[in-house]
C-alpha cells in the first residue's frame, strides 16, 4: 500500500462514461490516458457509472490504497453530484474539499455531440483545468449554525393550509400569511372537486 508523504500531491482522476451519455461522444479512454501523463496524477481510470455504488467504492479504495490526497471526477455537473463525491471522499478519510469535478456531460458531450473529435479535445482540456485547480485546493472545515424551529408559509390556499398543518402538527411554530381577508384560496370557490366529487371546503 502506497503511503503519501506530506506535501506530495497524489491525484486520482476518474473519467465517467455515464453509459453512452459521455462515452457516446467523448473518447473516454483517450481522456484518461491523457490525464495519466499530467504532473502529480497517480492514477487515472475510466468507469461506466462513477456515481454508482461500485464507482464510489472504487474512488474510496484508491484513496486508501494509493494514498490519494486529491481527486478529480470527470463526469456530470457539480450541481448534480458534487455532494455525492464529496461524501464519498469524506468517508474514505479525505477532506471533501479536495475533490473537484470536470463537467464532461452537460457542458461537453451533450452540447458537442456532432463534433466528437473536438469534444474529446475539450474534455482533455477540462480535465487538465480541473487538475490545475485541485492542486491548489485546501482542506476546509464546515461550520454549524442553529436553525430556528419555525416556518413561514406564504399563501393560504389549499397547499399553504396543508403545509401549515403538517408543520404545526409536527411541533413547529407556523406563520401562515394570506393576502386576502380569509384563507381558502381558489379551492374555496370550487363546488365539488374531482376525482372524488366531494365538497372542497
Amino acid at each position, binding site marked *: 500500500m502506497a503511503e503519501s508523504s506530506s506535501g506530495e500531491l497524489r491525484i486520482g482522476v476518474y473519467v465517467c462514461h455515464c453509459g453512452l451519455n459521455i462515452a457516446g461522444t467523448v473518447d473516454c479512454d483517450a481522456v484518461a490516458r491523457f490525464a495519466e501523463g499530467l504532473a502529480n496524477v497517480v492514477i487515472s481510470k475510466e468507469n461506466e457509472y462513477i456515481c454508482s455504488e461500485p464507482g464510489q467504492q472504487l474512488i474510496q479504495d484508491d484513496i486508501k490504497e494509493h494514498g490519494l490526497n486529491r481527486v478529480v471526477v470527470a463526469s456530470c455537473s457539480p450541481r448534480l453530484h458534487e455532494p455525492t463525491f464529496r461524501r464519498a471522499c469524506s468517508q474514505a478519510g479525505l477532506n471533501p474539499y479536495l475533490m473537484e469535478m470536470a463537467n464532461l456531460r452537460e457542458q461537453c458531450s451533450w452540447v458537442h455531440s456532432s463534433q466528437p473529435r473536438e469534444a474529446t479535445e475539450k474534455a482533455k482540456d477540462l480535465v487538465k483545468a480541473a487538475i490545475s485547480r485541485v492542486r491548489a485546493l485546501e482542506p476546509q472545515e*464546515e461550520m454549524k449554525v442553529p*436553525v430556528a424551529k419555525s416556518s413561514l*408559509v406564504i399563501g393560504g390556499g389549499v397547499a399553504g393550509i396543508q403545509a401549515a398543518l403538517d*408543520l*404545526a402538527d409536527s411541533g413547529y411554530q407556523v406563520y401562515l400569511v394570506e393576502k386576502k381577508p380569509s384563507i*381558502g384560496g381558489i379551492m374555496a370557490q370550487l363546488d365539488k372537486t374531482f376525482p372524488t366529487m366531494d365538497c372542497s371546503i
Partner: protein
Amino acid sequence: MMDVGRHPRVKVLTLSEVTSVKGYVGNFDVTVHKKARLVDENECTACGICTEDCPVVMPDEFNMGLSSRKAIYIPFPQAVPSAYVINPEECLGSDPIICGKCMKACEKGCIDFDMKDREIELKVGTVIVATGMDVYDPQEMDEYGYTRYENVITSMEFERLINAGGPTKGEIIRFTDRRAPRSIAFIQCVGSRSSKKGGPYCSNICCMNTVKDTLMLKEHYPEMDVKVFYIDIMAFGKGFEDLFRRSKGEGVRYIRGLPGQIREDPDTKNLVLTVENTATNELEKHDAEMVVLSLGVKPREDAKGTQEMLTLQTTSDGFYLEAHPKLQPVDSATKGIFFAGCAESPKDIKDSVTQASASSARAMRLMNSGEITIEAITAIVNEKKCKVCGICVKVCPYNAITLDKDNKIPAHVNEAACSGCGTCAAECPTDAITMRHFTDIQIESQIDSILEEDPADKILTFACNWCSYAGADFAGVSRLQYPPQVRLIRTMCSGRVDKKFIWRAFEKGAPVVLVSGCHFGDCHYIDANHWTQKRIEKIWKRMKKLGIRKERLQLEWISAAEGVRFSGVMKKMAELKATVTSEEIEDTRRLLEKQKRGK
C-alpha cells in the same frame, strides 16, 4: 380550513403580505405588513347585523361578480378567520353625518376605524412558498365572444353557479333569460397550450374540471345536451379515466376540435360554434344555449415580486423553478425555501396537498436537527493585509462584514451570515480577503491551464453557479449545440470575478472573455451582480484607454432556464472571437506585460 384556524401553533395572518425576507437558511428575518381589518377578528361573531345597515353595494368577487356584497362583509360563510372585514376603499367612513352605520349596528363594538396597518417581524428557519396561481382572463381570446355574448361564461363562473351556496343556489341559468339552458358546450384549452394567448403549457386541471362539471350537469339536468370541444382529454390521474368514461356514459358528447369562432343569434341569444370535427375532417356548426370556457391557469401576477424578495428563479412560463426537476422537486435553489401548490406549476388539489406535505417534510428535515452545516465557501480576512478602507463592508449584500475605521480595527466576517458570493474578495484593493474554496490562486490556475495551449482558440467564460452555469447545464440537458471552444470557470457569483482575472486572461492570450451572471433581480446574492456590472464597466473604460477593443470583454446575464440563450451567446462569442486577429492578441499581451513591468 377550520383546523388551521384553530391550531395552537399556527398564527394565521390574513390581509397580510410578506414585504421582506432577509438572512439565510435557518435564520430568516421576515417582515409582514398586515392591513387593518377595521373589525376585531377575535371579537367578531360573524352575526352579520353590521352588513344589513351598510349602504354600499359592491360586486362580490367570491361569486365572480354574479352577486353583490356590502363594504363590510364576510368573504364567504366558512371564512377563516370567521370575521367581517371592511374594505376601506369602498367604505364611506365612520363620520356619523355621512355613515358609520355599521358601528352603530355592532353591539359588541368590534368595529374600529382607528385600527392601523401593522408591521410584524418574524424569525423563521424555513419558508414555504404557496402563493398559488391566477386564472386566465379570456377577454383577449375574443373569437369565443366572452366580452360580447352574455351566455358565454367562464369555468369559474360556472363553478359559482352550480354551487349550492352560490348566487343561484346551484341552478345553472342563462344570463339573458334566467332559465336553464337546454344545451351547453364546454371549450377546453382556453388560455392553455397556446404559444400566443395564455400559457404554452397544459394547465393540468381544466380537463378533469370539465369532466366533473359535465357529470354534475347530467345529475341535475339529465335531459341537457352537453358537448365538450377539446384537443386532447388529459385524464392521467388516479381515478380520472374512470370519471371520464362515466361522463361519456352519461351521454356527454366529446368532439375533437376547437371552434374557430362563436357567433350569437341576435334573437334567441343562442350560440353557434363553427368547428372542424377533426375526427371526421368535416366543418360543423353546433348550436348551444350556453358556452363555458374552460380556463387555464397562469402564474400569479405578483410572482415577480415574491421571486425577487426570495431570490427565486422562474422557468420561461413564469412558474417557480425547482432546484432539480426530478431529485429536488419541492426545493428552491435557495436553501431553506420550498414550494407547494400551483406556484411551482399548475396542479390539482391532490397534487397540491401532496406537494405541501412533501415540502413541509423537507422543511422539517432542516429544522429537526436544530443546526445545519454551512458550505465552507465563506470569506476570511487576513487582518495584517487589511487597510481598513471599508469597501468590503459597502459591497457585502448580507451586511456580514464589520470594521471600525476610526479605531483602525480591521474587517471581520460573520461567517454565519456570509453566503460566499466573493464580491468582497474581488473588490478588496489589498487582496486581504480570501474566499475559502474559491481562492485567487485556485481560479488563476484554471485560467492558466485553459490558456496554456492554443489560447487564441479559447472562449474563456466565467459563469456564476446559480444562473449562468445552471443555464449552461440546461443547454446540455436540452442538447443544444454550441462551439466547442467554450471553457467555463465556475464561481459562486459573478461578483467573485476579480478584475485581475480578466487582465490575466488577456495577458495569457485570450482573444475574448465573457463574464456571465444572473439577471438583475435574479441574483442569488441579492444584488451582488450590480457590482459585477460596475466592475466590468470600469474595465471597459480602462481597455478603451489602453486601446484594447472593449468588445473583447463581454458581460451577459443568463438565467438557469435560458439554455437557448446560453447557446446563442456562445455562438455570438465564437463570431466575436473570429474577428480578433493574432496580431491584436499579441499587441494586447505586449501592452499588458509592459504595464506590469512598469508597475
